[in-house]
């Protein structure tokens, strides 16, 4: 690897990061390629189409240092959505054995009932111990280029994902086999003012497996942190995975994430992107449908207030026939907050009989709140059903008056209506514990105690 200071990395003050040791040879090659890409892409400005509405000044104005290991013990309780879950914890991007459920040096395994098998371990260990499983997928879960009616459908570039590949040292390797009965919780905790973290998560849902996972990001509020996580998910043939992602970091945090999923034939992937926290948050979610008869959900709930800026870019590639996809984004924007949504759906030339539905709705609660919404459907097959709809609105007077005329105070009535708006997505989450805890957080965020 080059020891020269990379301009984009130095822009973030992270020179030292690029010089850290890199692990096995194949990984060093991967990192070298990622560095080249990242160097070419740099840190985007609003001149870049994909970053038009999300200026990164707040991020680049600060000096960041590569993340240090966090404390062994936390004062505050770490998030848990369900008492009987299997929980693994990553502190400052590093897998924490002591805070993770088994508490033993061996990987967390065999917790699943019904013959299911669960492996959750440090990615750093898995790089060597499970090379055969990890190497084919790490950094490879992404769309490819295909040809369609005289043009090329290209994957998007993700400069921060490349940066994660360059600098990540650890993270989580999660392997799901058979039916996993308990909820699997992945908790990312960030702490340490001015530090940057790059956790890497690789989730392998093996053939025919069934599981529900929730991945939660929190920071402890002791000062700004910057996390640039990458999560890669492989849903193999016939597997069924529900994946809830919760970003609930403290209001001065920076969060720029990349989340890529690969779906094999006859697989189902139900994903929910819940965004409550951070000063600046950007999630790029991509799903590549690599086989026939797939079912996909990519839904989102965004609740932004104060000066928050929350940006979600989703991209779904229907590359094979008979794929069904559903996407609903519900976005609540208050105060001076800004929310950005860009939803791309590519239906490739071979993807006949695709059925894709996209809806995104925003509720503006203040005159200074902003929403930028861009559905983007590109269809190269002729026998498909694709619909999309985007609406932006305010709370309606009549339901508000109706509730108040029954005695519900104004603030509570507003919160209930906002909640009902967002709940349409939260209600789709099948795990009751997760759904209830997310509903409770939403109420807290709306400032109303409705217990």
């Amino acid at each position, binding site marked *: 690897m080059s020891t020269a200071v990379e301009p984009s990395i130095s822009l973030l003050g992270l020179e030292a990061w690029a010089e850290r040791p890199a692990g096995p040879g194949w990984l060093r090659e991967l990192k070298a390629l990622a560095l080249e890409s990242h160097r070419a892409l740099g840190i985007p400005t609003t001149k870049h189409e994909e970053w038009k509405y999300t200026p990164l000044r707040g991020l680049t104005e600060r000096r960041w240092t590569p993340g240090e290991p966090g404390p062994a013990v936390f004062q505050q309780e770490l998030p848990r959505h369900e008492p009987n879950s299997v929980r693994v914890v990553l502190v400052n991007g590093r897998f924490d054995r002591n805070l993770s459920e088994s508490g033993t040096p061996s990987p967390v395994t065999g917790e699943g009932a019904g013959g299911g098998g669960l492996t959750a371990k440090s990615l750093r260990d898995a790089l060597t111990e499970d090379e055969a499983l990890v190497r084919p997928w790490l950094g490879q879960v992404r769309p490819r280029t295909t040809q369609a009616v005289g043009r090329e459908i290209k994957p998007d570039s993700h400069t921060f994902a490349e940066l994660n590949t360059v600098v990540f040292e650890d993270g989580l390797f999660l392997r799901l086999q058979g039916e996993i009965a308990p909820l699997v919780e992945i908790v990312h905790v960030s702490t340490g003012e001015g530090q940057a973290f790059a956790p890497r998560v690789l989730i392998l849902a093996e053939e025919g497996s069934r599981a529900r996972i929730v991945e939660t990001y929190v920071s402890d509020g002791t000062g700004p942190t910057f996390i640039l996580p990458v999560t890669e998910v492989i849903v193999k043939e016939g597997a069924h995975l529900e994946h809830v992602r919760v970003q609930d970091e403290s209001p001065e945090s920076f969060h720029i994430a990349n989340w890529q999923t690969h779906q094999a034939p006859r697989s189902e992937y139900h994903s929910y992107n819940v965004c409550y926290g951070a000063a600046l948050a950007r999630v790029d979610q991509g799903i590549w449908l690599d086989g026939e008869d797939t079912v996909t959900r990519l839904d989102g709930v965004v609740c932004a207030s104060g000066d928050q800026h929350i940006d979600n870019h989703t991209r779904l590639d229907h590359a094979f026939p008979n794929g069904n996809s559903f996407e609903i984004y519900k976005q609540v924007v208050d105060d001076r907050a800004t929310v950005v949504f860009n939803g791309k759906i590519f239906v490739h030339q071979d993807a006949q009989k695709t059925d894709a539905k996209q809806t995104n709705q925003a509720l503006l609660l203040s005159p200074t709140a902003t929403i930028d919404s861009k559905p983007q459907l590109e269809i190269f097959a002729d026998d498909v059903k694709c619909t999309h709809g985007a609406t932006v609105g305010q709370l309606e*007077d*009549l*339901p508000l*008056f*109706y*509730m*108040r*005329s*029954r*005695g*519900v*105070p*104004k603030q*509570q*009535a507003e919160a*209930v*209506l906002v*909640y*009902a*708006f967002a*709940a*349409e997505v939260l*209600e789709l989450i099948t795990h009751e514990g997760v759904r209830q805890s997310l509903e409770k957080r939403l109420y807290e965020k709306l400032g109303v105690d*409705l217990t």
Partner: protein
Amino acid sequence: MLQIHDLHAQVADDRREILKGLSLTVQAGEVHAVMGPNGSGKSTLANVVAGRETYEVTRGDILLDGESLLESEPDERAHRGVFMAFQYPVEIPGVSNTYFLRAALNARLKAEGKEEMDAMSFLKHIRAKVQLLGLSNDMLSRSVNEGFSGGEKKRNEIFQMAVLEPRLCVLDETDSGLDIDALQTVANGVNALRSPDRAFIVVTHYQRLLNFIVPDFVHVLMDGRIVKSGGKELALELEDKGYGWIEAEVGATA
């Protein structure tokens, strides 16, 4: 209980005056029917009492137990015992009837400085009302009015009234859009709630509801004012002769 005195009200948006000096006194235990042709201001009266912000009161006053309602927010009016059954009940997807009513009832208890009802005693309370009105339990878990038929929506209004136990009930054209069976169910509900310390104002265009909810007084509203008052026989006369003869009578005395 209720005194409306020389009430003038206009539409806030375009300042069109609808109520032009309306006066009405209602005592506890009484049922007053307010009838009148379309556009006479019947619904405006109901909405102004409930505190709808699309109307502005420009003159006069509404007193409940001797104290003005006009400065109170809609929710505060509800806490003071005012209830309006809507002509077009509003659908609120994602909010269950049970949750909605518990929030409403507890807000009032809180405003009265009383202890809020826990989930168990609340459930007991509403089950009793479901029984009293002969409704089905599945109404409780459904979202407020979502996908309800016209009749179900009106029944739900009466159900809410039964649960919240208001002192002044204003029924805004509750009979509109109902077939005769649904009308009877709704009327039976109202009759079950009649009591010496509760008053009703029944706003209606047609007399037929008054066959089932028999009023103590009937008032005719025309062009924003009550132009004639009488007993229940006045409603029959209106049914028989229409509103024209009153118009003529008012015209003659004016």
